[in-house]
């Protein structure tokens, strides 16, 4: 998973100053309001969230057992299971399947994991036409961009942008309203669906007990992708497995509500293998690809393990004040927002994503809204300290100066007499450095602190000396 080299600081600055992006991102608040209403409508939404978390905890704690059971169940249905250690292996598997079956055209449904492994680029290199069928993904594909939000990939584009795109790239002119654009896309993609040899989907959940892949959507493109082409390939992160069919009752209740405030999304498909004998539609072959790609690294790290519980609902993106200001592209990663900030270090390597755990005010809104109650701020702090201490084999992320300053600070703070002396010294000389009673500019490397905020002055008399004076009185 590659991350662009331009720094996060540059991209986020640019995004924060982009007024039209800001206007479009503000609409995400609507999702939050709807989400809250949808949960309030449930008899006991909180208990449901607890239950969803408990299921995920159990599934992840017994991941090896359930993945094995999933494989057996899929095979029993006549499907094939392929294990991929990383993105490259996954691409190879899927391309080999395509080649062996003379696949020329592929239709894909929205799947973050196919972005993660850069599948579209691989298809292109192999001369296979792969078309995104989710409207938002279709739009970003035509534009040659990456999706900027898990649920609404083209949210950063205005309808004017999109209409222009359709005119320039597809030759379909004079589209103005969202409805017209959608009709045009429906017509165009219908042809793609009918001509496709292979359909590629992700998986929202994979049921170990029955070998069923559950897929949730609103547009109907997943239904078409799994009904018309002769081969269906579903690729899943290994953390998507859940123990039993009944667990879906819990997840179906919380997923759509968290994501977009709907009580139920328009379509849910449970796919268990290929079509049965005598059926008129459905794929003739079913393949499940189970992907690691760094997830075992997250699994190993117990403190961060719960990030694997993620349902990819997108609620944390919607509620995050940082995401709302800078949008998904500024993160420069496949997974953006709070969840992106905690899983990308494991999936893409720390070096490439070091800014992300720091780009948070730790307000905790993400934790409050997460349907499986992932403690994102806690994990962000863990990642920060891992980076600073240079654990997991890398050297410390902090500069020599920062480490030296911290050591000096620790030294002074743990020696009361030294502390008092330092205080008296600094308090005596701070006068000329203050502006309007505050430090608005600290010298040397400390200037980084005061770039965006003031630093309070040292008190003229320390508490210690005031106390001493009082006692002596």
């Amino acid at each position, binding site marked *: 998973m590659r991350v662009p080299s331009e720094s996060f600081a540059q991209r986020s600055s640019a995004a924060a100053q982009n007024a039209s992006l800001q206007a479009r991102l503000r609409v995400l608040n609507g999702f939050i309001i709807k989400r809250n209403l949808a949960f309030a409508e449930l008899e006991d939404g909180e208990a449901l969230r607890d239950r969803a978390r408990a299921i995920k905890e159990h599934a992840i704690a017994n991941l090896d057992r359930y993945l094995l059971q999933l494989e057996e169940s899929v095979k029993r249905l006549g499907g094939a299971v392929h294990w991929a250690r990383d993105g490259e292996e996954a691409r190879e598997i899927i391309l080999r399947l395509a080649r062996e079956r003379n696949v020329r055209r592929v239709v894909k449904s929205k799947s973050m994991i196919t972005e993660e492994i850069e599948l579209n680029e691989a298809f292109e290199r192999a001369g296979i036409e792969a078309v995104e069928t989710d409207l938002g993904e279709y739009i970003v594909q035509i534009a040659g961009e990456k999706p900027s939000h898990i649920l609404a990939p*083209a949210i950063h584009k205005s*309808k004017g942008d*999109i209409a222009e795109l359709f005119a320039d790239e597809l030759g379909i002119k004079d589209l103005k309203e*969202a409805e017209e654009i959608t009709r045009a896309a429906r017509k165009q993609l219908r042809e793609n669906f009918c001509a496709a040899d292979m359909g590629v989907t992700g998986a929202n959940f994979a049921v170990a007990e029955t070998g069923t892949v559950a897929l949730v959507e609103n547009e109907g493109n997943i*239904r078409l992708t799994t009904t018309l082409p002769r081969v269906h390939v579903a690729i899943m992160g290994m953390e998507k497995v859940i123990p039993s069919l009944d667990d879906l009752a819990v997840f179906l209740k919380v997923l759509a509500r968290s994501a977009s405030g709907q009580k139920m999304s328009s*379509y849910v498909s449970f796919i268990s*293998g290929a079509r049965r004998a*005598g059926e008129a539609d459905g794929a003739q072959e079913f393949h499940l690809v189970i992907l690691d790609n760094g997830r075992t690294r997250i699994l190993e790290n117990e403190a961060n393990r719960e990030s694997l519980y993620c349902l990819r609902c997108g609620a944390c993106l919607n509620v995050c004040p940082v995401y709302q200001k800078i949008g998904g592209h500024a993160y420069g990663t496949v997974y953006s927002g709070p969840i992106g900030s905690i899983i990308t270090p494991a999936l893409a390597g720390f070096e490439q994503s070091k800014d992300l755990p720091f780009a948070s005010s730790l307000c905790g809104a993400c934790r409050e809204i997460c349907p499986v109650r992932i403690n994102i701020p806690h994990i962000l702090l863990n990642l920060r300290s891992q980076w600073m201490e240079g654990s997991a084999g890398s050297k410390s992320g902090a500069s020599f100066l920062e480490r030296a300053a911290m050591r000096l600070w620790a030294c002074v703070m743990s020696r009361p007499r030294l502390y008092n002396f330092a205080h008296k010294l600094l308090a005596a000389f701070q006068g000329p450095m203050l502006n309007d009673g505050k430090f608005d500019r600290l010298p040397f490397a400390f200037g980084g602190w005061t770039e965006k905020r003031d630093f309070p002055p040292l008190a003229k008399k320390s508490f210690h000396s005031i106390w001493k004076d009082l006692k002596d009185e």
Partner: protein
Amino acid sequence: MLSKIRGALKSGPRARSASHDYGASEAYQPAPASSTALRQRAQQISALCDERRESLIKRFQTELELIGGHFYLAESARSACDYVCRVAAAENAKQAVAGRWPVIDRIGLAEAFRALGIHLAVDGSQGVAEGGSGEFIPKAIESVVGITGVDYALADTATLVLLAKKHQPRSASLLPPVHIALVEAGQILSGLDDLFALIRADHKFSDEPPSAVTFITGPSRTADIELTLVVGVHGPQRLHVVVVGG
């Protein structure tokens, strides 16, 4: 790969995250159930739904209309058939597709459409070859209206549940721009919990799951363009649900 996972899980003591006061992972037990227990539960649910039929129908209607579906309560098989014909006529349908659901036969749809000059292709019947030869799909693509029955309907979210079977193809409710679903009043349950209990008892799901189970909740929709809601994307643009009483 599995051994790598096992290794990762074993590293260190059992996972207890800091945010932890919601039920330890030990507390979760996947639900096993004897088939007797399943049968009993299924019977209880069916009995309860029978009792509450009227309120379930009303709830279904409310929820369906909230999400842009059209609801019709047919007192008789005849009025159900008339409604379907009215919709087909209003859509200027020349071609329609359906599957073999008992309810479709019950309302005499084939004869009614013939009388109206609407060509109805039913999967598995004469003129539409069986299974894999793919003659149903092209008909579905050309059709304006697709008519199906359902296996279950959920009142609290106005969801239709269809299990794929021979002669009950998925594309009948997917390809044409208009989907008309005929629901027997007794098929309406209160919600997902009822459904999962019944689906197990009725269908031996773990042994032989159907190739697909499709939940349909309203017409297709998207908000991908500026988060503006547009109804009718790749799936049907209009959904009619006819509850056939009597």
